[in-house]
């Protein structure tokens, strides 16, 4: 089975400052990695995903994440946040094949609050 740990439940950061949201995963098999964002009263939107290739993945809204296999991490970063980035961010994994490959396993989420 897979599990995802998001180490910070809440992250306050000042506008235009950089931010890193941490994600670690545990799995005995190969996984794909995802970051989703949820704005208030909306569904989850895909920010970025890592399937293969370059370990640095760029997503929408200026976010990027780096897959580190040795540390089993997939931290999300943005060099300069905006007020509009205030939302909850979810890290997720799925198996690359076999039973369970249709489903995402999510972390508990990190609430990013951008302070003006």
């Amino acid at each position: 089975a897979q599990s995802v740990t998001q180490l910070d439940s809440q992250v306050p950061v000042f506008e235009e400052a950089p931010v890193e949201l941490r994600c670690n995963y545990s799995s005995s098999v190969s996984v794909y990695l995802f970051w989703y964002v949820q704005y208030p009263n909306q569904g989850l939107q895909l920010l970025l995903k890592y399937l293969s290739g370059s370990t640095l993945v760029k997503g929408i809204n200026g976010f990027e994440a780096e897959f580190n296999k040795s540390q089993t991490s997939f931290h999300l970063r943005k060099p300069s946040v905006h007020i509009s980035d205030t939302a909850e961010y979810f890290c997720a994994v799925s198996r690359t094949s076999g039973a369970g490959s249709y489903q995402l396993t999510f972390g508990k989420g990190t609430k990013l609050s951008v302070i003006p």
Partner: protein
Amino acid sequence: EPEVTQTPSHQVTQMGQEVILRCVPISNHLYFYWYRQILGQKVEFLVSFYNNEISEKSEIFDDQFSVERPDGSNFTLKIRSTKLEDSAMYFCAGSGGVREKLFFGSGTQLSVL
């Protein structure tokens, strides 16, 4: 961008009652999913549906749950006899392929009293 539509946005029901949560996926999607999030907990996978049958389901998806896509458009989740612990936000999602971007609806908040 196309949207997944879920109705109702809020549903309140009495314990033991049946509820049906409805979803209208994006028209060219082939894979459909239900997830739920109990307040303060993780988003959890319930079931995936492809080619008019369940492809995977979690331990949560017991005999009280069922899904169907009766008319080729609406995708429904039925809970036959609701329990207090079924209270959660239920998300529908769809994609054009297994590894393709999942589009989520904005959710139905189910409250079982």
